């Protein structure tokens, strides 16, 4: 996120215009503030190995995960909460995504925010929008699975199925967490560590 998405001028300008942005270290014990970057890299390379990323490709994947890893990889590493001004979740995204897709999700959050507070049934309207979008990804995943059955060796298709499933899952999680305070979800991993 830092090296790619948040390093792009267009994305930074977009976020400046539309959001107040912040970040949170969800695992301060594993990644303490004083931890040298090399140590963080070492831990992250271990994670990439567990995901089956080849040794030669790990450093480059690590440098630009948003572009070099399959879309949505790293669900436990990156959790993104798009919230109202009062810190209530409207849209949730996990994993690494390209800057383009990140902005699409942010745009979707802005569309949801327009619904928020517009009527007593705003929660239902936001849920409906999430469900409709989820359905699009479920169908795209199904289509990619069918194509995969015809040509099982295509790695791109496997990634497409996974990415569509993650997108659908993000909508499910957004519905579950709709209008909740993100604090408890930001700390989930921390609790697991203890």
């Amino acid at each position, binding site marked *: 996120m830092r090296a790619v998405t948040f390093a792009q001028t267009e994305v930074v300008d977009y976020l400046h215009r539309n959001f107040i942005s912040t970040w949170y270290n969800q695992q301060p014990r594993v990644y303490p503030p004083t931890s040298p970057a090399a140590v963080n890299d070492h831990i992250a390379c271990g994670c990439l190995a567990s995901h089956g990323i080849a040794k030669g490709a790990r450093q480059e994947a690590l440098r630009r*995960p948003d572009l070099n890893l399959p879309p949505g990889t790293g669900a436990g590493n990156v959790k993104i909460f798009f919230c109202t001004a009062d810190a209530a979740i409207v849209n949730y995204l996990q994993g690494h995504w390209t800057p383009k897709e990140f902005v699409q999700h942010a745009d979707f959050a802005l569309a949801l925010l327009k619904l928020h507070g517009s009527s007593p049934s705003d929660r239902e309207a936001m849920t409906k929008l999430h469900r409709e979008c989820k359905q699009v990804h479920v169908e795209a995943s199904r289509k990619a699975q069918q194509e995969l059955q015809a040509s099982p060796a295509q790695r791109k298709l496997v990634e497409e199925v996974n990415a569509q499933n993650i997108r659908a899952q993000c909508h499910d999680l957004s519905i579950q967490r709709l209008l909740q305070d993100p604090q408890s979800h930001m700390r989930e991993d921390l609790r697991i560590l203890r």
Partner: protein
Amino acid sequence: MNRRDTLRLGVAALALPTMDAIAHARTPEWILPVDSARAVAKRERKPLLIVSLNGNLDGNC
């Protein structure tokens, strides 16, 4: 393009941060600490974006 222009281009290329330098640079100043961001969002009635990740945003995440 004369020799001076070539030299300027060379200097400009050298001045560009490498991907490694970007990845290990400090957290961008436009990203606020969580508590401050919450307060500012509330005061300015602006949507809040929270990125929760492993590390300090001065690594690769």
